[in-house]
């Protein structure tokens, strides 16, 4: 377990989106390391500290897509909010869906914020800038230890 670290966990299966989000982080000059996981099951294994993620750093923020292989973002969220202290991790849903059923469900399951991926890269850069300012700089973190 590493407290007080700066890792951002990006749970995203679309490689183009991964590349664009990473590029937006560079544009905004965010130094936080990004760890990318490609499906919901990997995300749960990582957060739970199971093989092969036993030595993983806990993230400061989780960016979670909803439509993922194996386990959906909703399922990851549901699992996370049932954990002893891991449940305190802030989760920002970052997805393409603007269906109200998806939005409501995400909040019901304990999402801290819900963002829809913008189509233009310029808008994505703006979004990442705000995300950084709010969640990584202004926001006060809770204590999170391994359960």
């Amino acid at each position, binding site marked *: 377990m590493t407290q007080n670290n700066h890792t951002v966990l990006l749970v995203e299966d*679309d490689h*183009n*989106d991964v590349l*664009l989000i990473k*590029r937006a982080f560079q544009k905004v000059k965010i130094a936080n390391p990004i760890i990318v996981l490609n499906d919901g099951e990997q995300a749960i294994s990582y957060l739970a500290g199971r093989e092969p993620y036993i030595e993983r750093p806990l993230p400061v923020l989780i960016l979670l897509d909803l*439509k993922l292989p194996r386990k959906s973002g909703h399922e990851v969220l549901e699992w996370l909010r049932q954990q002893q202290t891991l449940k305190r991790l802030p989760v920002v849903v970052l*997805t*393409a*869906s*603007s*269906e109200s059923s998806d939005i409501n469900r995400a909040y019901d399951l304990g999402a801290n914020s819900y963002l829809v*991926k*913008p*189509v*233009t*890269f*310029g808008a*994505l850069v703006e979004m990442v800038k705000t995300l950084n300012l709010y969640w990584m700089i202004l926001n006060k973190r809770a204590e999170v230890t391994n359960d």
Partner: protein
Amino acid sequence: MKDEEKSKEQILKELIDLRRTVVADGAGDQLKREHSTAEEKYYNLFQSANDAIFIQDLNGTIIDVNNKLLALFGYDRSEIMSVRMADLVNAAEESKYRTALESLVKDGATVFEILLRRKNGESFPAEVSASTFPVNGEKVVQGTVRNISERKRAEEEFRKYRKHLEAFVAQRTDQLEAANKELESFAYSVSHDLRAPLRAMEGFASALLEDYAEKLDETGRDYANRVVSAAQHMDILIQDLLAYSRLSRSALKPNAVSLDSVLGEVMHQLSSDIQKRDAQIRVERPLPEVMGDHATLVQVLSNLLSNAIKFVEPGVKPKVNIRAETLSNKVRLWVEDAGIGIPPEYHARIFRIFERLQGMESYPGTGVGLAIVKKGLERMGGIAGVDSVPGKGSKFWVELRAKGF
């Protein structure tokens, strides 16, 4: 009328007396000769009636029946006098018969359905209507029997048909629900999956323009720019299409909505557009309340107003007037502009999805706006239309039920 009834009762009484004598004497045929003319007239009526008629006492003893009744049950006249009323009833329905008799004594008249029995044991459904008459201080019953086999069969057919129909409707409803679900998941994948490659197109073309601008010549940069703007246009198209499809599948429950508050929200939504174009918008307040759905009305009005400020000659400041008109139980809201106008042959067509009259360069848009207006009104039980003269401006209107109607 009263006299006639009285004489009928009188005649019946005498007839019954005669009958009793006859039954007691066993001298049936002499009877007819002893009839007076009035009695004869009544007796003929009794015999030639289209219904099967019986007369009985309260103990269930038959006093007289007509020929129709004999035919219906398959008895001879000589046999019927030794039959009791209860013998004419299907054994399983005896208690029903007794209950009917009881209510007959109590109320003086009754109509009931019952299974009756022919001489050959065959059963048939019948409707019996009976009433009591006082004769010589004691009550007798006169009733008609109607064979309702046909009606029962028709009712049964109808019941079967209705059941079939119900099953059919239920099945269709299931199918429709399934289709609706499918449409929903289609819309979901449209919003989710179709936009993903768009993000990539736009994002990487932008990356080319930013990181490799020097390595591209003018034409190369133009091409990359075209990729960016095409992707952006397709994104708007998908969003509009989604808004339209969401409107088609969401159930709306109309309630009282203030058009003033709807318009307030719309003006807020379009404020930057209104400022950019320096549009002059006049609203004849107060606007009334209508029966509708708030969010849908915002969508509708936002499309009408954005059209009104968009479709003007280049360089002209848009001028829009918004007013409402109450016609008994309906409210008609007008959005009137002084823009380019619409030739009459296109007035119906522009409400269809993707129908546009101008090129993308002069007036950008996807052609979904008015389709949303039309669909939205349909969903709220209203209508929409337009009055327009080319060059003189357009007056779009929507009509909904007034509040409380």
